[in-house]
């Protein structure tokens, strides 16, 4: 397998009246072709900002993004447009990310028109749209419907179809199933896995739902307040967690089984403000094991076991 995407020391700060908001702070990772990288974290940890920085919906403040070996951090104009053919995004909310005035067909068609995939050959284009609709499980009769006529699950299928229209290699999925009911969520997850197998797609799967991320990802990054705190393969992470935040996060998931009594690590307090954060570990104010060192110096990612990276002063 070869590396498809590499992110190096990516930073994104937003200017606010109160100071700099550190949304993403010094995040590095790489993704192999055909794999799924899960990015987990709670609201406000910078996971969506990270996804948006990678595919150029936001300009990163600092750092580099490499796609197939090429530095794409500062590309613009025609080259940027070209790169969109390889990288697409599925958005979180199927209710607001689709233009309500366009029909299903025209929504899926739009990327093809913009990128002149079929050079104006209407018949060919129409056929391509129907093929994609079939792939994502949308019936042909819905081609002329408007989004408001459809339920959440079908709308999310439109979002997926639109992302697939240009046959990208890489898709950033920003909470694609969070707005859906469990039974529909399972349908969409299966669809995404099928598509990955058929087309060799690479995903970044951003979510706050740990059971979903375990199910779909090969590797997982855990984020807390803009920083990467733990990174390893999906199976390993659920076997053994090193970072106190990951431990608390995993113990907080309610498990759908009767009569399981688990020791739960209850975190005190809430996520602190990402505006002008204090030096030191971001998690220190809520951490059960925080030492003086944790408040002074930010920990670096260390490889504790082969392939298992943790940013914590305890180790």
């Amino acid at each position, binding site marked *: 397998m070869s590396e498809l995407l590499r992110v190096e020391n990516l930073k994104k700060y937003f200017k606010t009246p109160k100071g700099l908001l550190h949304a993403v702070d010094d995040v590095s990772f790489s993704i192999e072709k055909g794999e799924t990288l899960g990015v987990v974290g*709670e*609201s406000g940890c910078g996971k969506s900002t990270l996804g948006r920085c990678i595919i150029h919906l936001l300009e990163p403040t600092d750092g580099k993004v490499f796609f197939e070996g090429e530095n794409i951090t500062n590309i613009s104009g025609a080259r940027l447009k070209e790169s969109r053919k390889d990288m697409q995004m599925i958005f979180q909310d199927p209710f607001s990310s689709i233009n309500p005035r366009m029909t299903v067909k025209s929504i899926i068609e739009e990327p093809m028109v913009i990128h002149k995939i079929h050079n104006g050959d209407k018949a060919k284009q129409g056929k391509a749209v129907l093929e994609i609709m079939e792939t994502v499980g949308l019936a042909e009769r819905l081609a002329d419907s408007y989004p408001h006529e459809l*339920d*959440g*699950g079908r709308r999310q299928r439109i979002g997926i179809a639109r992302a697939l229209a240009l046959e990208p290699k890489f898709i950033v999925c920003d909470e694609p199933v969070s707005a859906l*009911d*469990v*039974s*529909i*969520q*399972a*349908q969409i*997850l*299966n669809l995404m*896995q099928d598509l990955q197998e058929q087309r060799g797609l690479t995903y970044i799967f951003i979510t*706050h739902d*740990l*059971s*979903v991320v*375990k*199910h*779909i990802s090969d590797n997982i990054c855990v984020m807390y307040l803009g920083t990467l705190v733990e990174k390893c393969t999906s*199976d390993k992470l*659920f076997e053994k967690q090193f970072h106190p935040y990951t431990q*608390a*996060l995993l*113990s*907080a*998931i*309610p*498990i*759908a*089984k*009767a*009569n*399981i009594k688990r020791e*739960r690590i*209850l*975190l005190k307090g*809430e*996520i602190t403000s990402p505006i002008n954060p204090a030096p030191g570990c971001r998690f220190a104010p809520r951490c059960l094991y925080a030492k003086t060192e944790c408040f002074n110096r930010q920990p670096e990612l260390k490889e504790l076991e082969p392939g298992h990276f943790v940013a914590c002063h305890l180790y």
Partner: protein
Amino acid sequence: MDNIIEIKNLTIQYKTDERTVEAVNRLNLTLARGESLGLVGETGAGKTTTALGIMGLIPNPPGIVTEGEIIFEGEDLLKINKHKLRAVRGKKISMIFQDPMTSLNPVATVGDQIAESIRIHEKLSRADATIKAKEMLELVGIPGERYAEYPHQFSGGMKQRVIIAIALSCNPKLLLADEPTTALDVTIQAQVLDLIAKLKKEQNTSMILITHDLGVVAEVCDKVAIMYAGEIVEYGSLTQIYDNTCHPYTKGLFGSIPDLESKADRLNPIPGLMPDPANLPKGCSFEPRCTCSCEKCKSNNPHMVEVEAGHFVKCFNYVKGGNA
């Protein structure tokens, strides 16, 4: 056992000129004192409508309770007059609403909002109500000094705590919690669930917890009712429902959740979609999506069958054993 609430044949419809939405259909439910029941179902199953029905808060028009009884402490809540109902609502039965961001008044301080319900139901002076409201804040883990702050100064988890404080301020007998943690992050959800469980134990409150999350139910509830298209399709104790799942819909729900412990390659979702509540199938409402339906299911709506003591299933072909 001593029942705190008995719901019999509750039917709620939303009627408009064009169509009638059958939101809740002949729902039967009893809850014993001190118990907590998890009411589980997907969007549009009628969970919230049921809770609003108990509170007498169904918006009318278009909502109408067409049939049924809600017996609470020997009185039918659907028959008593408005004034009596007001004395019950917020005092004996109170509700935690789903969305902590929108269910508080943005232009009143959180303390005043807690004191408001205390002053309405308990004849306390303004000063005493303030003291009690501060105690409630402390009880849910918010320092009393924040009494005079406004909702926008609180985070989502804190706002939900304020709402819990309002709901519990008059020591209710029955608490209806409508998706109390859905809008919260997992670590905050754990804090809030812990708080609800603790307070419930201290005040011996009965609770109906409305949720779509089977994990949350497993943590908090004794009894579980699974709702589908306005009906309860399976009812029993936590162990009965989770370890001896009988209804095909409940099985489908369990199959849809990714398991944290085992590594399944694919999920087993329920095919298709929830039926339109304005146009329910003639027979069993789950029949179009069911994998083990038969001819009988198409034309007849099954009745509740008791498969073991206290475990009821609304299905003709219920499957025995947990993983059949």
